């Protein structure tokens, strides 16, 4: 029991043989890996390789057909609804398009989880919301609606919301999608700072090579043809040592020394 718990703490997330199907078609099969406490773990792969599907299975949106997702040793899909809700409270998710609730202001967006899950007074919530928004550089935008701000700001506001309850684990779905290169790099820096300062365990779904090489401690590579993971390790090590041509092709894409024709 004790040993199990220690293992759980060292690996806050572990995924065992997860297979996901939509309407009888398998979109991901036999995925298995562990994420270490405080690391930035990147799930990479081309379009249609099932990266976002894997994230959905991990954050409680899509039940896998087989396999288990363990948080600190508790199997998410097999446990009771109450425990599941408890686990979800400690997870923050930043969606691809931010997914801010459009009928609420930025402040209300960040405040909602605090109102739902803490017994804080409204004044305390207001202070916390201002603090979280200032962490992502959005002080003064408390009363703006999502439709009134730019795409990059929306993502940062969504990050403030994802961090509202000081989650132990943060998921980022394609953080650089839809952002200009400068904003995308700023978001990468923000991710690194979060890990440095708050020791949050971070899972990033992306195909952005620059992000991958900048932030990843560990990564897995999902292949769209085989619908499974074909590599696991630090991306720089994979780049140098992987013998799989698919992994090498992905990681060297766009680099002059190995540009394919066209």
């Amino acid at each position, binding site marked *: 029991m004790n040993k199990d718990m220690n293992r759980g703490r060292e690996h806050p997330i572990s995924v065992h043989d997860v297979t996901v199907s939509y309407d009888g078609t398998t979109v991901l099969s036999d995925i298995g890996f562990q994420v270490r406490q405080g690391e930035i773990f990147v799930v990479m792969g081309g379009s249609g390789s099932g990266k976002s599907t894997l994230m*959905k299975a991990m*954050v*409680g*949106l899509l039940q896998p057909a087989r396999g288990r997702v363990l948080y600190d040793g508790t199997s998410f899909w097999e446990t009771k609804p109450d425990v*599941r*809700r408890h686990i*979800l*409270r400690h*997870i923050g*998710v930043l*969606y*691809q*398009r931010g*997914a*801010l*609730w*459009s*009928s609420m202001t930025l402040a209300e967006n960040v405040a*909602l*989880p605090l109102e*739902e*899950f803490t017994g804080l007074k409204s004044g305390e919530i207001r202070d916390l919301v201002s603090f979280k928004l200032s962490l992502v550089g959005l002080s003064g935008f408390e009363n703006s609606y999502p439709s009134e701000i730019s795409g990059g700001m929306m993502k940062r506001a969504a990050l403030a*919301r994802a961090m509202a309850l000081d989650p132990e684990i943060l998921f980022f779905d394609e953080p650089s999608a839809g952002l200009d290169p400068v904003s995308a790099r700023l978001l990468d820096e923000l991710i690194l700072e979060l890990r440095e300062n708050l020791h949050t365990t971070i899972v990033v779904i992306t195909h952005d090579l620059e992000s991958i090489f900048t932030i990843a401690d560990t990564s897995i590579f999902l292949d769209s043809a085989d619908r499974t993971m074909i590599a696991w390790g630090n991306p720089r090590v994979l780049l140098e040592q992987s013998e799989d041509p698919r992994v090498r092709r992905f990681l060297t894409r766009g680099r002059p020394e190995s540009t394919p*024709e*066209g």
Partner: protein
Amino acid sequence: MHENKMADTENKPVIFGSASPGRRGEDTILIRVAGIWRMGEPLPGAQDVLDRAGDLSGIRHAVFDASEIVSWDSSLATFLAAFFRECERRGIQADPQGLPPGVQRLLRLAAAFGGRMDAKRPEPGRTFLDLAGERSIDFSRSFFDLLEFIGSAALSLARLARGRARFRLTELVHVLQQSGPNALPIIFLISALVGVILAFVGAVQLKMFEAQVYIADVVGIAMAREMGPMMTAIIMMGRTGAAFAAHLGTMETNEEIDAFRTWGIDPMEFLVLPRMIALVVMMPLLTIYADLIGILGGALVGVSMFDLSLPQYLDQTRAALTLTQFGIGLSKSIVFGIIIAISGCFYGMRCGRSASAVGEATTRSVVAGIVFIVVADGVFAVITNALWI
């Protein structure tokens, strides 16, 4: 116009793209590709070219001579892609070396993506029965989804009754405002007109018996029992139900509903419940309003065109209408309110993620909602008839 002469004497001079079998070696055939290849002009078929080559037994390779090509566009690439496939089918290996480098690159690109495009093609040979079967399976699946949705809506209502459901009060107030006061002008217009129409329809018949005073009975009873709740429901389905579907559909497309779920917040309580409550509260009020306006519309016709006085008309209405008639109308309006909220929210929440999905979800919700409203009205008619009320 370019005139292009082929070196090969067995061919006539060509203007537009041509391909022809030329000299052959032991196991190799040379294909001459020449002329102007332009989309929209008649071009050779891959099969024809190989057929014209005569006996191909023993031929294992095809090579190209493209030295006399004048110009080319995608039509050449299309022809060559078909030609390569045909060669493969006949066990001949075609070597693109002799082709212009640009065409070679295009062909490589097409080959790189070809497999994936094939994979997306629907399998051929689906018959009417296949389609009918698929439709039936889809239908039964969405029927069970709807049952599940109604079930969880009922559960969240039960949680609300025990004081355990959570939603934002501001959301409820916003929906109340949207579905109540903002709907008054359109309901005024439609109900007044329905009252006028009912009065005219009744008056034509009643005038024959000099019984115009009964216009008040016709309008009053028809409005309170049938037309008031029904017209209000149809307006509200088109106005508010469609807005629910569009709003929730956009939220689904935008992953906002997923964001609720990953916080462990039940979108059923947070989004559907306030909408159901708002309509259950507002529909009876709007129906009473519609009834009154309809009666006034009828009075307008009766007083101005059929020599009735206003007090006479109103007295007659009061005598004809019983609380039961109103009660039936109000019970209907509550049921209609639930139908509108459920069909708007149900189709909104199962909206897809594509750009056209929100529009489709909205259309479906309105069509289904109106069908359910009319069906429910029919069921009410049967029940009230059986109960003699």
